[in-house]
């Protein structure tokens, strides 16, 4: 699974608090992605990165920011968590047009 870890794996937080999720990879993939998965919506892309400090928005980027200061780490920040951001968050990595390898996911509950 391309050496991908996500932390934390589970988190409960309160509305209005900032939350940062971390994705770490060990195989030097250029591309990294953050998705959220909700029933009835499948996988929706939040943000992605195509290199260190190079990021772009996905289809559901409002309320989220990302940073990639090192090849191996891609951080997703919820600036002020809302209940609508309760979801399962997946990080994925890839080298280009090839397959994407997914991390184990983070289950986030915003109360």
């Amino acid at each position: 699974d391309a050496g991908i870890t996500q932390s934390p794996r589970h988190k409960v937080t309160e509305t209005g608090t900032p939350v940062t999720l971390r994705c770490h990879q060990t195989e030097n993939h250029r591309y990294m992605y953050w998705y959220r998965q909700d029933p009835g919506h499948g996988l929706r892309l939040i943000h992605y990165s195509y290199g260190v400090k190079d990021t772009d928005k996905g289809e559901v980027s409002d309320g989220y920011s990302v940073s990639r200061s090192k090849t191996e780490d891609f951080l997703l920040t919820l600036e002020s968590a809302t209940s609508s951001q309760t979801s399962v968050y997946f990080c994925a990595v890839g080298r280009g047009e090839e397959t994407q390898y997914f991390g184990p996911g983070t289950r986030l509950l915003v109360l």
Partner: protein
Amino acid sequence: GQQVMQIPQYQHVQEGEDFTTYCNSSTTLSNIQWYKQRPGGHPVFLIQLVKSGEVKKQKRLTFQFGEAKKNSSLHITATQTTDVGTYFCAGRRSGAGNNRKLIWGLGTSLAVNP
């Protein structure tokens, strides 16, 4: 909005029956990928199809890419309980500048009764 339609959304079969899920895009795709997600797990890559009319097999799974590169299918022969999960298709648009992001179908959830 969603540009890759995947049907059916759910499918229940008896073990041993066949299963097919279809993926249809409104635009031409440069390639299409299939993923499987077990309940409680994460999506796992199954296969990528690139060529028009391409057919690939993995044991009981047969994958097809349409001649126009706008549709694809996954067929499972003689389903087993280990096939339970959600199957996603994901395609990349043709043309420059759009190739970093996959367009995902909503998935087909397969339940298999033993």
